[in-house]
C-alpha cells in the first residue's frame, strides 16, 4: 500500500485488535495501556508526522526477494526454537514457578492492595519502573531538542476574536468536545487513583489526560491551547514527576530503609506501602502526561511553523 494514511489507519485497527487480544489473555492493565496508547496517541503522532513528511511512498527499488529470504530463514529458525517451549497455558511453565507465586500469594499481606500488577509495578519492581519513567522523560527531552521552535509571543493577542468568528464552522463537534473534555479529565483522575483496586495507574492515566488536552487543542486551535497550557510549566511538571518518584526513595532511605522501600515510610509497613504507591503513581502520572503533552505540542508547533513558512514563501 503506497498511501501512508491508509497504512496508519490499518495500524490503528491493529492496535485496537491487539488490545482486545490482551483482554482475552487476562492482561487487563496491559489492555488498558494499549487502548490508550496504541489506538490513540500513536495514530495521532504518526498522522502529525506524515503531514510534515508527505503522504506517499516511492515505489520500492530494493530487492524484496533478498529481504524475503532473510525473513523466511529467521522465521524458520525462530519456529524451530519454539519446539522446546512450554505449551500455551500450561501452569507448570518456568515463568510461573519463579517469583510469580510469591507475588500472587503474599502481596495481599505485604502490600495490602488487590491489584497485583500495581503492587509489583510500584513496589516489588519499583526501581525498574523508576528507570522506565526516566526513559520516558529522556524521550520527551529528545523530542524537545529535535522539534522545538522559537515562537514570537505577539501573535497570541488576536486569538479571542478569531475563536468567536469560527464558532459556526464546526459547532457540533465543539459542543460535544466541550462536554467530553471535563469527563475525560475526571476519568483520568479516577484511573490514576483507582489503580490500586482495578485496572489502571499512573501510566494509563497520564496518557488519557494527555489525550484530553490534545482533543482540546484540536478543537480550539493550537494557539489557544498554547495560551491555556503554559509550556514552561508542563516541562517543569515533567521534571517534578521524576523528582517526586526519586525523592520517595530518598525519604525511605532517610527513614532507615532501602531505596524505594516504602515500608519505612510509616510506622505500619502496609500503610507505608499504600502511601508510597500513591505518591509514586502520582509521579509517574505527572511525568507521562506532561511528556506526552510536550511531544504532541512540539509536533504540532513544528507543523504550524512549516505552514507559516510556506505561506510566507508563497
Amino acid at each position: 500500500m503506497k498511501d501512508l494514511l491508509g497504512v496508519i489507519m490499518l495500524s490503528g485497527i491493529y492496535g485496537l485488535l491487539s488490545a482486545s487480544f490482551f483482554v482475552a489473555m487476562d492482561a487487563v492493565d496491559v489492555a488498558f495501556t494499549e487502548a490508550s496508547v496504541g489506538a490513540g496517541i500513536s495514530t495521532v503522532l504518526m498522522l502529525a508526522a506524515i503531514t510534515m513528511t508527505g503522504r506517499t511512498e516511492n515505489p520500492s527499488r530494493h530487492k524484496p526477494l533478498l529481504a524475503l529470504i532473510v525473513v523466511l530463514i529467521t522465521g524458520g529458525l525462530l519456529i524451530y526454537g519454539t519446539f522446546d517451549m512450554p505449551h500455551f497455558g500450561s501452569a507448570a511453565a518456568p515463568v510461573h514457578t519463579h517469583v510469580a507465586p510469591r507475588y500472587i500469594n503474599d502481596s495481599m499481606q505485604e502490600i495490602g492492595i488487590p491489584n497485583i500488577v500495581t503492587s509489583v509495578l510500584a513496589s516489588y519492581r519499583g526501581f525498574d519502573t523508576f528507570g522506565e519513567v526516566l526513559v520516558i522523560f529522556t524521550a520527551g527531552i529528545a523530542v524537545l531538542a529535535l522539534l522545538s521552535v522559537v515562537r514570537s509571543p505577539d501573535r497570541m493577542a488576536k486569538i479571542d476574536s478569531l475563536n468567536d468568528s469560527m464558532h459556526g464552522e464546526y459547532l457540533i463537534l465543539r459542543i460535544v468536545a466541550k462536554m467530553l473534555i471535563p469527563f475525560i479529565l475526571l476519568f483520568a483522575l479516577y484511573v490514576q487513583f483507582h489503580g490500586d483496586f482495578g485496572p489502571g495507574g499512573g501510566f494509563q492515566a497520564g496518557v488519557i489526560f494527555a489525550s484530553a488536552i490534545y482533543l482540546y487543542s484540536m478543537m480550539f486551535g493550537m494557539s489557544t491551547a498554547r495560551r491555556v497550557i503554559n509550556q514552561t510549566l508542563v516541562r517543569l511538571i515533567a521534571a517534578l514527576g521524576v523528582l517526586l518518584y526519586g525523592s520517595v526513595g530518598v525519604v525511605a532511605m532517610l527513614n532507615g530503609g532501602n531505596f524505594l522501600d516504602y515500608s519505612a515510610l510509616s510506622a505500619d509497613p502496609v500503610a507505608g506501602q499504600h502511601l508510597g504507591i500513591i505518591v509514586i503513581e502520582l509521579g509517574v502520572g505527572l511525568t507521562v502526561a506532561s511528556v506526552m503533552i510536550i511531544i504532541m505540542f512540539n509536533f504540532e508547533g513544528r507543523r504550524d511553523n512549516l505552514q507559516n513558512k510556506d505561506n510566507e514563501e508563497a
Partner: protein
Amino acid sequence: MDNLLEILSAAFLLIGSFLCISGGIGILRFPDFYTRMHAVGVTETLATGMILLGLMLQMPDAMVIIKLLFILVLTLFISPTASHALAKAAIKNSLKPKLDSEDNKERI
C-alpha cells in the same frame, strides 16, 4: 422474576447481535461511502444500546450497571458526532454520493 429478566436480556442481546451483523453486511455490500455510513451509523447506536441493555439486565450489581450506563451515554454522544464529522469532511472534500443515474444503474 429472574426468569423474565433472563429472557429479556437474551432477547436484547439477540436483537443487538442481529443488528450488528446487518451493519457488518451493510459496510461490506453497500455501493458507496454514504450508504455504508448509513448502515454503520444506524447499527452503531441501536445495536450498542441493545447489547448494553441486555448486559445491564444480567447483572444486579449497581456499580456495573452505572458503568454500562456511562458507556451507553458516551456512545450515544460520540457515534453520531463522529459520523457527522466524517460525513461533513467527506462532502467538503468533494466526495460525491453515487446517484441513481443512467450509467450506474446496472451496477447497483
